[in-house]
């Protein structure tokens, strides 16, 4: 489990917003409705959704807990298929030869090549297994703070999209500007001065 592993990579979010029926119920609903499907479409390239922290391969939020103390904790699971480029290249070469023999022509057209590639990728995608990646999420609802245990851009982007879809709260990534805006207690005059800052010249010349 990422959250209790020995080393972590984390990116942070500020979450503002309320749930009309209470936070625990709102979060529970969002998790259930957007849990990763148990049966994945074998022709899909990617499948993503929430899963319980303790049972990442059994996405059942009816029985699993997501409330730990005052924290909401669950996981984002991203199952992805990846076909090596060289495998596509190999099958394209085989299929191209077949096509040439069938047509009796020494070449195939651009359109035929595109169709072949689509077919090859479809067949290989069907045969390839999903590789799961699990990223834990720790949400301190009271303090409007959330930690995603990943700094990978793709995982962050998928997280942001799925989180907004699930809970109708827009996650705001924490970085220098948003720390000032969301975590600081600067007056509007101070904020104006911060916004007017430009990079320093440390050489002093």
């Amino acid at each position, binding site marked *: 489990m990422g*959250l*209790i592993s*020995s*080393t*972590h*990579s*984390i*990116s*942070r979010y500020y979450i503002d917003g309320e749930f009309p029926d209470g936070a625990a119920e709102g979060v529970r609903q969002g998790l259930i409705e957007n849990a990763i499907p148990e049966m994945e479409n074998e022709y899909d390239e990617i499948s993503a959704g929430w899963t319980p*922290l*303790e049972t990442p391969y059994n996405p059942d939020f009816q029985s699993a*807990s997501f409330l*730990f*103390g005052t*924290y909401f*904790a669950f996981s984002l699971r991203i199952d992805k298929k990846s076909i090596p480029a060289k495998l596509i290249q190999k099958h394209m070469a085989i299929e191209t030869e077949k096509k040439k023999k069938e047509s009796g022509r020494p070449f195939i057209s651009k359109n035929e090549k595109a169709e072949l590639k689509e077919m090859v990728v479809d067949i290989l995608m069907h045969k390839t297994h999903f590789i799961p990646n699990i990223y834990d999420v*720790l949400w*301190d609802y009271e303090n409007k*703070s959330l*930690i995603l245990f990943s*700094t990978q851009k793709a995982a962050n982007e998928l997280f942001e999209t799925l989180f907004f879809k699930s809970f109708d709260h827009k996650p*705001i*990534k*924490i*970085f*220098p*500007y*948003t*720390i*000032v*805006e969301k*975590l*600081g207690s*600067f007056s509007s005059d*101070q904020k104006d*001065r*911060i*916004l007017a*800052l*430009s*990079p*320093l*010249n*440390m*050489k*002093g010349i």
Partner: protein
Amino acid sequence: MLDIATAYNKYGFLGNEFLTWIWYLVETDQDITALSGSNDPVTFEIGNSISLENNLGDKSKEKITIKGDQAGLEEGTTALKKGAWVTDMNLICKIGEEEYKFSIKGESFNITGLKTPTIDTSASEDEIEGMIIEKSFLITKVINVIDTLFLKFIEKRISEAWKTSDLKAIREWIQS
């Protein structure tokens, strides 16, 4: 509030200036406990890597990365003299008796390789809640120190005394 993507690109430099300031605090033995507002003593050490970047003006950049447990930081200080900024650094933070190690990136504040004090992970499933709460407490603790120090840096950066006091002292340290 500004558009997030615009703000990320426009004010990323504040994160790099902050990391450079942290290095200055460490090297000149400043009272980090007082700056972080912590009840426990807080100290920082530079860990096993630091990266600096210098904009050369014509859209090209000079990047310097120093890695290694016993690596000297002379090339880093030379880069600072030429106008470079710390963009990424590995830090060892002690809060009271607890030690945290991590790398932090200036523009994103993303934290990688974070090692918190060890917690007992051999507990039974019933005790998993306790482990999660303890781990969350430790991670939050070090994050709070970083955020408080960053806000303190910003407070200083916009203060009247910045140019005559803090900036002067940082420049003197860089040129020393």
